[in-house]
């Protein structure tokens, strides 16, 4: 009974959500674009003036931008590599018969619920610290010189921390997908003479393909914007070795007060994220029809 009456009701019920999100999307974005064309520094109030593409030119030719872009891609790619491969292996493992499966699951998922600042601090101080960290103690106990993780391999350290946070997410989603695989399909393949590896390659992996894509796309959205972990552990350093685009924009805006330059950087980040989002939306959109 979708009458005209209920349809106008429906529009009214959707209005608050739509209007709020529309405002949230348009107002800040429009202002960021506007600022990006200004020479605008918070330390020099009242000196704002139109600057054309200057901010973009500076931001995009700044060597720091390329370092940050590379760092962003390495961080995102590294974490994806670890979590997707690790997630597949973990999902396969957790799908096996074992004792205490429920508890194992709970233990594996736990890191996802730890707030980013906590996990960054715990890893930084209690594990990666060259004097008091557990890794240092471990190295000393086997006679090796302790490694100052965040000074010597800063980006790798951050990749490890972030991967630890996201591995549970990948595992959980891939396990859910794995468990939705029809048991009879696996049995049919077994009757057809497929061994464990052929079954994995020809039956299990294609079945999980969609979930893997979803994991990659969703994680990418979040990983492009990693912030708290960097702020808490290295502040983007040493130098700019762990500065990603998000952190670069933050530093430019709230540490150097260069609103114009930071805004240009923000727009660049938006463009990058949109490229990823485009693919993600198509994936999820397809699923809506099913």
């Amino acid at each position, binding site marked *: 009974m979708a009458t005209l009456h209920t349809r106008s009701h429906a529009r009214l019920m959707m209005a608050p959500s739509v209007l709020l999100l529309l405002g949230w999307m348009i107002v800040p974005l429009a202002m960021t674009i506007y600022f990006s064309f200004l020479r605008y520094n918070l330390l020099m109030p009242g000196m704002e003036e139109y600057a054309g593409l200057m901010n973009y030119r500076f931001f995009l030719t700044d060597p720091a931008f390329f370092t940050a872009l590379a760092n962003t891609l390495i961080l995102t790619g590294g974490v994806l590599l670890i979590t997707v491969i690790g997630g597949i292996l973990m999902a396969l493992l957790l799908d096996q018969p074992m004792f*205490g499966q429920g508890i194992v699951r709970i233990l594996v998922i736990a890191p996802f619920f730890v707030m980013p600042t906590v*996990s960054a601090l715990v890893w930084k101080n209690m594990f990666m610290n060259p004097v008091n960290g557990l890794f240092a103690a471990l190295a000393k106990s086997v006679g090796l010189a302790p490694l100052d993780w965040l000074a010597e391999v800063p980006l790798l350290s951050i990749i490890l921390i972030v991967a630890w946070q996201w591995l549970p997410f990948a595992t959980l989603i891939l396990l859910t997908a794995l468990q939705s695989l029809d048991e009879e399909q696996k049995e049919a393949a077994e009757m057809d003479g497929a061994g464990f590896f052929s079954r994995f390659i020809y039956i299990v992996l294609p079945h999980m393909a969609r979930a893997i894509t979803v994991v990659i796309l969703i994680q990418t959205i979040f990983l492009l914007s990693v912030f708290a972990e960097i702020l808490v552990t290295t502040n983007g350093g040493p130098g700019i070795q762990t500065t990603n685009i998000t952190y670069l924009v933050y530093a430019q805006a709230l540490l150097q007060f260069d609103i114009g330059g930071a805004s240009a950087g923000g727009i660049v980040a938006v463009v990058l994220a949109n490229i990823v989002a485009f693919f993600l939306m198509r994936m999820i959109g397809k699923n*809506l029809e099913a």
Partner: protein
Amino acid sequence: MARKVSTARKLTFTAIAWVIALLIFFPILWTILTSFKTEAEAVASPPSFVFFDWTLENYAEVQARSDYFKHFSNSVVISLGSTLFGLLIAIPAAWAMAFSPTKKTKDVLMWMLSTKMMPPVGALIPVYLIFRDTGFLDSRSGLVFVLMLINLPIIVWMLYTYFREIPGEILEAARMDGASLAKEITHILAPMAVPGIASTVLLNIILAWNEAFWTLNLTASKAAPLTTFIASYSSPEGLFYAKLSAASTMAIAPVLILGWFSQKQLVRGLTFGAVK
């Protein structure tokens, strides 16, 4: 279908899985253990695992020195507030989309999702400046508003996928049975929708509790939730492992417990229904 699994095989997998699971969980376990040590024992080399003098003094100390409960209550207010406000706005929208869908419904949903894809740095500067100029910087109400907005798409989506699973025939049956729209909602829809609403609330409290971009950038002290409070330990003078561990344990415990209840919903919520 059920084949007998050999005990040896099962034991092998059990051993492997437990070792890996404990390794993954270890940082959390270690944090919890350290929170019960004295500062001296916390940095002792070699570290002791269980055989130390258990103490609760770190917990008292954290509260006394930095007013832990102020930040804890900020976290509660911000995560609960943003979730409940979001729910209030999202329920009618999800309802309308699930029960009187039009050709545009899908587009609206996809568009809502797309707002979630915008990287926060794209909005940071204007939001920061607006908050600074309107006095919302370092205020709980300001954060409630922002976190409500960033989680609104997820809330709408989750509710929509739950509502859509309520079969239309049941609503028709209620209509045939003489239920008015109001009674249809109170007697049939609400009881059937409550589990979905509850899972949505749970997941969003978790997401808001752990949100660390906006909370770090928009709060300093007065309205600082636990994310910001913990980050303040990153300065060198905060290097007291046992106290850091106590503060961390208290910050993650509530969500750890909530999270274990919401494993299943987590998958659906975070993949926007793409994986169930």
